[in-house]
């Protein structure tokens, strides 16, 4: 460092401060590594323990299977197809039913939730009925849908819809109800019609409420689709579970579970990504500006 290029005032303090912030960054990095390392270790330990105990016949591998067998089963399905057809087809079917059910349920929930949130009379009239329907454990409707709509995807979509609808509906309703009264008053003063208040004030401020329910409800949609398939279907991961169970193939049940978890995580990630894009106006991610 030549003295001509360095500003003299900064030099005594800067290295010290640099050192300290560097040390802090190092400590933070260390912490992250430690957390990740321990996580991996925990997973490996648990799987190893399972595998070891099963191989040593401490636990019965027939009932409890073991990780290597589950992996083999998953690989075998992926490469050579399942008894019901290609694995991707099963995944696609389940995903298709869950997604379709989710979209319909979300749409219905949002529309009805906002409508009832805006129109007090409707809310007063329909309120008790919705409460009763919500109190019903809706998964018991799956067999009825099977009778109504048959073995095809329609019955699974229907059970996904009823599971998704209610949480979304209640959140949208609450969101529409809890809109800042000031904001509504202000927009009406600024000249907004009722329609404009609904679409440009109520719906945007309810979106954060709705989005919280979207995360939960996608899980519900998967449950609806899987349970529907489990009860009776011609294709899908739920059917895979049911068929594996029917042949006492514990590895098959676990492998299907594993695949489901991966699918659910991917969908969740996609949703989180969308949410970040949509909520740029929120203070939560204010730090970096944009």
């Amino acid at each position, binding site marked *: 460092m030549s003295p001509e290029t360095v500003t003299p005032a900064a030099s005594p303090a800067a290295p010290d401060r640099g050192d300290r912030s560097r040390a802090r960054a190092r400590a933070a990095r260390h912490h992250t590594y430690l957390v990740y390392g321990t996580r991996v270790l925990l997973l490996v330990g648990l799987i190893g323990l399972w595998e070891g105990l099963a191989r040593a016949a401490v636990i019965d591998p027939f009932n409890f299977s073991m990780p290597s067998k589950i992996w083999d089963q998953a690989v075998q399905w992926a490469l050579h197809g399942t008894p019901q057809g290609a694995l991707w087809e099963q995944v696609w079917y389940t995903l298709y039913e869950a997604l379709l059910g989710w979209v319909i349920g979300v749409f219905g929930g949002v529309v009805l939730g906002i409508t009832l949130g805006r129109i007090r009379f409707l809310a007063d009239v329909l309120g008790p009925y919705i409460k009763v329907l919500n109190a019903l454990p809706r998964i018991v409707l799956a067999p009825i849908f099977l009778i109504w709509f048959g073995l095809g995807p329609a019955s699974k979509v229907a059970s996904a819809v009823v599971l998704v609808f209610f949480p979304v509906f209640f959140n949208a309703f609450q969101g529409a109800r809890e809109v800042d009264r000031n904001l509504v008053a202000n927009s009406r*003063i600024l000249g907004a019609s009722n329609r404009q208040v609904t679409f440009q004030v109520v719906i945007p401020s309810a979106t954060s409420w709705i989005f919280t329910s979207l995360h939960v409800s996608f899980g519900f949609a998967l449950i609806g689709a899987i349970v529907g398939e489990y009860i009776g279907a011609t294709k899908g991961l739920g059917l895979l579970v049911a068929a594996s169970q029917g042949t006492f193939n514990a590895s098959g049940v676990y492998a299907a579970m594993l695949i489901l978890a991966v699918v659910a995580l991917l969908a969740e990630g996609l949703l989180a990504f969308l949410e970040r894009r949509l909520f740029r106006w929120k203070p939560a991610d204010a730090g970096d500006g944009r």
Partner: protein
Amino acid sequence: MNRHTSPAIELRGTSKAFRTPSGAPHTAVRDLDLVVGRGEFVAVVGPTGCGKSTTLTLVSGLEEPTEGEVLVAGEPVRGIGDKIGFVFQQDAVFPWRTVLSNVMAGPRFRGVPKPEARQRARDWLARVGLASFEDRYPHQLSGGQRKRVALAATFVNDPEILLMDEPFSALDVQTRALMSDELLELWSGTGASVVFVTHDLEESIALADKVVVMTAGPATVKEVFAVDLPRPRKVESIRLEPRFLEIYREIWSSLGEEVRITRERGAAHVA
């Protein structure tokens, strides 16, 4: 009072009662008579919670009076008029809209085409000194900047009547003085009639042509004082003038009594 034209705002024997959550009626405003001339800046002062804000909601058409009449430009108020601008105490900007889009909201609601609305919004943003902030979201602004957005969003509609409900009470003292000056400047070009509700007597004298003192709730007009300070005014310097202090003393002798009554009632509640 100037009756040669129909005044901008006129309240005649107006009362407003609300139903409290417990079901008992609560009278916020009782038998209120008030006249605001065209282009006049009227400040309404009174003890906290006496029903000043209710008066504004009656003029705006957000609420209807239980009794009496509210006239705007000689016409009884029916619903929210398009000549009204309202600046609220709390932030009433849309958090999901950018600054520019917030200011465009009013004209867009009223069916102004987008390019023209954008032009007008930019114009007002420049006047409140936020031209370079148009892409920001409200949460990225300071309290004073958000208030400026609210002012721009109100003025962009060219209101003939401007209702302000303690608009600067949430700001710190320096920002407040600055905003008061800016408000006077923005207002001076428009010829709008202003009703400015506050509990800060200094602020009201510095801004207004006329100070209306309200009684402890239920609110009714106690006394009206003319403020004969010359315009244009600078809020920081005008409060040092002897005439200002004279007016202040005069009004406080009237307002102080109502404040004491409110305070005693509060104490009685606590006891």
